[in-house]
């Protein structure tokens, strides 16, 4: 294992110390219990947007704390969801009387820990709504699974809900907006290489020199199919096809796109993939209203990418364009 770390067990905390040192103008980090809040929290008269999950997906979630996005993020150990006490404490630290919305990725651990935290908050009179992101089309959604995994729609949701909360929307309206976004966002990922959890010391899975994992999860969970490496064009056709067909997205639809790197993918390759995607969505008659290309929801040093499409409309695009000021996403200010 080759990593720029000290002791594996200190990785999360030391990295958050660095985040705090670099972005003290935007956020503050509480170390016991562990959570991250925007520097000006609690923001008066605003619903608090709280998310979190296992670490190793940076900049998600802590890199999205700040104006126009998250009020608080709760990082767990690497690939391990945070515990309820942290989530409760983070929610308390940012709530201002209009309640809190929890954004949860659909992994059993995250769901269970956020549920417990929400119960603890509610028992104390704090209004909490939760939305569960389950957008990964690689997974069958049936009673035979834990449901679809949460992927890139999380990033878009955090940005859009952050903007809507900033505009003063109430908890119920935000929860409804969140459900609408979750219903119309779809994602799928591909891994070229595995990743290594620092405390484990060896890769979570192995891939032969010419093998890729199609439909990989952000914790390196195996996906739909182990396949041979293929040209970017074919790969993007397969991935975009799966994402587009699932909802389905139709001719004339407006979309917001996230073309996401898994952490170890050069930007050059992401833009090359974007070129393929651009051709495909144009042929399908989709109108790309806004897009992000870069590393936003990663899996440590994994090489690969994921694609997210979200059905957009003028309302969502306007929210998207509102000012955002976080370590990893910033515009309009």
């Amino acid at each position: 294992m080759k990593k720029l770390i000290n002791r594996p067990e200190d990785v999360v905390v030391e990295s958050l110390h660095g985040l705090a040192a670099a972005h003290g103008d935007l956020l503050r980090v509480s170390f016991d219990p562990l959570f991250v809040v925007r520097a000006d929290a609690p923001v008066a008269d605003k619903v608090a947007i709280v998310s979190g999950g296992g670490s190793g997906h940076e900049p998600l979630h802590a890199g999205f704390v700040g104006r126009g996005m998250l009020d608080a993020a709760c990082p767990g150990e690497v690939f391990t969801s945070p515990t309820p006490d942290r989530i409760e404490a983070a929610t308390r630290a940012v709530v201002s009387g209009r309640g809190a919305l929890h954004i949860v990725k659909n992994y059993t651990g995250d769901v269970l820990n956020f549920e417990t935290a929400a119960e603890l908050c509610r028992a104390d009179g704090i209004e909490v709504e939760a939305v569960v992101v389950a957008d990964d089309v690689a997974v069958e959604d049936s009673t035979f699974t834990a449901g679809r995994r949460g992927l890139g729609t999380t990033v878009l949701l955090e940005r859009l809900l952050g903007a809507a909360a900033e505009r003063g929307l109430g908890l119920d309206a935000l929860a409804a907006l969140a459900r609408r976004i979750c219903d119309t966002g779809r994602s799928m990922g591909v891994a070229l290489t595995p990743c290594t959890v620092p405390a484990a010391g060896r890769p979570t899975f192995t891939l032969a020199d010419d093998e890729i994992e199609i439909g990989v999860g952000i914790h390196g969970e195996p996906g739909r199919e182990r396949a041979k490496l293929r040209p970017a064009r074919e790969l993007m056709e397969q991935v975009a096809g799966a994402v587009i067909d699932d909802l389905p997205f139709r001719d004339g639809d407006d979309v917001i796109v996230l073309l996401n790197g898994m952490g170890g993918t050069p930007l050059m390759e992401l833009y090359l993939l974007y070129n393929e995607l651009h051709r495909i969505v144009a042929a399908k008659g989709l109108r790309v209203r806004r897009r992000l290309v870069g590393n936003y929801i990663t899996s440590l040093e994994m090489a690969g990418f994921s694609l997210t499409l979200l059905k957009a409309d003028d309302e969502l695009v306007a929210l998207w364009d509102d000012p955002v000021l976080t370590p990893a996403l910033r515009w309009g200010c």
Partner: protein
Amino acid sequence: MATLARFAAWIARLDAVYAEQKDYLTDLDAAIGDADHGINMARGFAAAHQAIVAAPPADVGALLKAVAMTLIRTVGGASGPLYGTFFLRAAPVAGAVAEVDAAGVEALFAAGAAGIAERGKAVVGDKTMIDAWGPAVEALGASRAAGGAVADMLAAAAAAAAAGRDATLPLVARKGRASYLGERSRGHIDPGAASTALLLAAAHETLG
């Protein structure tokens, strides 16, 4: 009779067992999950052991509660809330007592396991820790009905849990992270069922 000291010894033993079996459990999780189950369990029970050493609980209920809260605070993942729920539900069933008899042991294990099933919404056959807990609790009851002492009951439970663990091998997972694999989850033992089997084996070694 399972005394407070024996419950404390159980937790101490679990600390040692999960430290020892960390790689084994993590390797199982690497095959069909995210390669952290051993790490999670070792971290949680090291903390739980430390907590009851630092502030020795006055009775069995308090000990189980302290373990529950520590697991919930330190484990995370799916297994944290699930094992946390086990101890949380077991605590009031045991109550503020210095020792627990056979009926009490059966009751607290049954309540704890029911809590896990409720929280995780899994049933036997879903290829989760419930595949070990279900048969174990049944075996406990059967052993006590047949007049077994605590030691006999836990021996039966440990054996049933181990069998339940092994029975997960050919199953397709329907809950938790492994369910994303569909058919590809076949041929692997569920890590949570394996950690449950270890928990009951340790119970047999210490509580009886």
